[in-house]
């Protein structure tokens, strides 16, 4: 029987090889269509989402103005998964969009992106400035590769701030906390008044990580946390600055400042409770008002402030959503043309007015609930959310940092234990990566 099986296996293998060669022989005959009178766009939005409607409007105008047909698929958030499969030899779209790290993970390391330097040099239709001038170099940290090549053109910006209801907390609105001590005082005050300080959907490990990652960036400066986890010796963890940052996080759990149930609920239960006034603060991207708006009390007034300082750094953690063109795209020119077309002020403004989000153009009006974020966006330097670790070291992040972080944030381990364990697991991790 064992012998039989082995033979079966060989037959299977031979057969597979046959199939694959046969398939390869009869495949690969279609070629580029060449003429750029159409383009295919795989969108991260679903047709009924506001961003999709804004884009659809622009696409319609674009088709009328240029005669280029846009074949758009409102695929939703899985568009990059489909793209990755298609890169193995299917028909690749000419235009895609997603958050910057999702795109960079999928097509930058393997050089499957079209460098977009030309797009940045293009004039925006009906305006007197280029793409690069319109969106400034402030977002280059998100949109360029290590070699300085552009792989992304942003059309939506996300800033990560600590949200609160100004109607319920007028004192905070009058003078938002700047330093961690100010913030800790607010939390203590809330607690003594019988309120919960912080809302956190702890089952989303990424949301819990925002807190610790930003604290580390505050203590070490932008790039400091990323450097910490990139170190194969894991030497940087046991320093006073790191301890300060981690202790601040530990204190959130130890002080009982989190809303009860933050460790045992299912998203979006806790942020919903926050919108209903059950907790004071929520650290979240600038999509917070659109995500929770439906649950918020009528008089709820969305305001937010920058993550408090733990040293000198006061950068604003941020991210962008933008367009990219896969390398094998047949109609890269048409896609470039559309990108420049969409960045026109009037068209891009709809992302703000219709979809209630921030855009990379400083001259576009912002939705009132995002005024605080926008002010920070314009006045502060930026840092990547989670200091870019989620994008650069996603495997390490999900498997090692996030679980340990959750233990720290639920008071299961102390700072000492955290440092000891992350250092040893990080060394093991890098060793196994060879």
């Amino acid at each position: 029987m064992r012998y039989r099986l082995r033979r079966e296996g060989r037959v299977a293998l031979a057969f597979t090889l046959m199939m694959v060669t046969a398939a390869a022989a009869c495949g690969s005959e279609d070629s580029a269509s060449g003429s750029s009178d159409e383009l295919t766009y795989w969108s991260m939005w679903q047709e009924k989402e506001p961003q999709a409607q804004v884009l659809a409007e622009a696409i319609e105008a674009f088709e009328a103005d240029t005669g280029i047909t846009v074949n758009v698929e409102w695929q939703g958030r899985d568009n990059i998964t489909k793209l990755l499969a298609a890169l193995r030899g299917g028909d690749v779209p000419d235009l895609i969009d997603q958050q910057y790290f999702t795109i960079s993970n999928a097509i930058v390391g393997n050089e499957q992106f079209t460098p977009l330097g030309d797009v940045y040099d293009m004039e925006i239709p009906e305006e007197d400035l280029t793409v690069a001038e319109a969106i400034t170099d402030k977002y280059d940290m998100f949109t360029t590769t290590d070699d300085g090549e552009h792989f992304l053109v942003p059309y939506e910006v996300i800033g990560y701030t600590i949200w609160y209801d100004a109607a319920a907390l007028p004192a905070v609105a009058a003078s938002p906390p700047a330093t961690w001590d100010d913030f800790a005082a607010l939390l203590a005050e809330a607690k003594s008044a019988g309120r919960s300080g912080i809302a956190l959907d702890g089952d989303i490990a990424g949301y819990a990580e925002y807190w610790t990652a930003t604290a580390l960036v505050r203590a070490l400066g932008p790039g400091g946390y990323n450097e910490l986890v990139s170190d194969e010796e894991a030497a940087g963890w046991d320093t006073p600055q790191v301890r300060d940052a981690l202790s601040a996080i530990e204190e959130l759990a130890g002080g009982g400042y989190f809303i009860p149930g933050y460790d045992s609920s299912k998203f979006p239960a806790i942020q919903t409770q926050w919108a209903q006034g059950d907790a004071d603060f929520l650290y979240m991207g600038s999509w917070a008002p659109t995500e929770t708006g439906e649950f918020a009390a009528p008089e709820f007034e969305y305001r937010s402030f920058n993550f408090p300082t733990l040293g000198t750094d006061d950068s604003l953690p941020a991210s962008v959503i933008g367009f990219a063109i896969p390398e094998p795209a047949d109609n890269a020119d048409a896609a470039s043309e559309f990108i420049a077309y969409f960045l026109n002020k009037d068209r891009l403004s709809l992302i703000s007015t219709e979809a209630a989000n921030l855009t990379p153009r400083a001259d576009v009006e912002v939705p009132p609930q995002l005024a605080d974020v926008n002010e920070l966006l314009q006045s502060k330097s930026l840092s990547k959310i989670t200091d870019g670790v989620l994008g650069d070291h996603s495997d390490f992040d999900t498997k090692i940092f996030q679980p340990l972080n959750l233990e720290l944030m639920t008071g299961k381990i102390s700072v000492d234990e955290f440092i000891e364990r992350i250092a040893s697991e990080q060394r093991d991790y890098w060793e196994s990566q060879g």
Partner: protein
Amino acid sequence: MSSEAGTLTTERGAGRGGPRSGRGAGTGQVPRRRRTGRPEPGRVVGRVLVWSFVAFNVLIFLFLITSSVKSTPDIFDAPWGLPTSLHLENWSNAWNESGFARATVNTVALAVAGSVSTLVVSAPAAYVLSRVRHRSAGPLSLFFALGLGIPAQVTVIPLFEMMSNVGLVNSLFGLYVLYTATHVPFTVFLLTGFMRSLPGEIEEAAAIDGASALRSFAQVMLPLARSGLVTVLILNAISMWNETLLGIVFLQSVDKYTLSLAVLNFLSSMQFSGADYGGLFAGVCILVLPMLLLYVWLGRRIVEGITLGAGK
């Protein structure tokens, strides 16, 4: 042929169990066991277990239905309460705006064609694997069984490359081929086990009557195995109905999306755009109800299949 099977049954019944075994054919009911008089405590506990299990599932079902006509804040304020006002627009929104109508057509076509094709390909294989004493039958059965353990996450990239070489990506037909093929191992496996334990005498009797093996398969075995065939058909249809990973990777045009992709899309747009749980549950009901009806309808057939088809 059915008369033949009928005669055989009576003969068997008369020969062995006496008149008692001639249980009311065609009633579709298993006769109640006679009690021995003394109550068995285990039975009481068991009944409590059954009914609480049933009650729990019914509650979940009601939760899905009521949630589908609630507003999203309502669902969070009182998840288990009755709706304060009817939001039937959840259904119409899901149906019209979120492409569930189109997705339903696609999914029905895929699940019906896929589950039937799988059966057509697998039943003959299961028949000979369970009945013919060929040296390779055992190893081959095992070989099919092992195919069951392969997670789609591993094979999806090679599959994609293969399918794109023959131009079957972003095609419902391509997905139909994949669904059919990937359900073959399970179907062969389950049916082989099922057919192996079916009575051999009836087939032998058919052989004595001079029937060919092909006729015996079509006219004796298939009716005999009907309950197994229907069971596996339903299980496959459900599995294809709910399949997501292959759908995500292989379908690129929204007008080709299946229901489970439409529901998943609903879910994932919660990030950034906020939750529409009412619409989600309406979508879930659209996803679930047809399968439920199918099961309720064909589930009874299974019982009939057992009582009539096997003739016991």
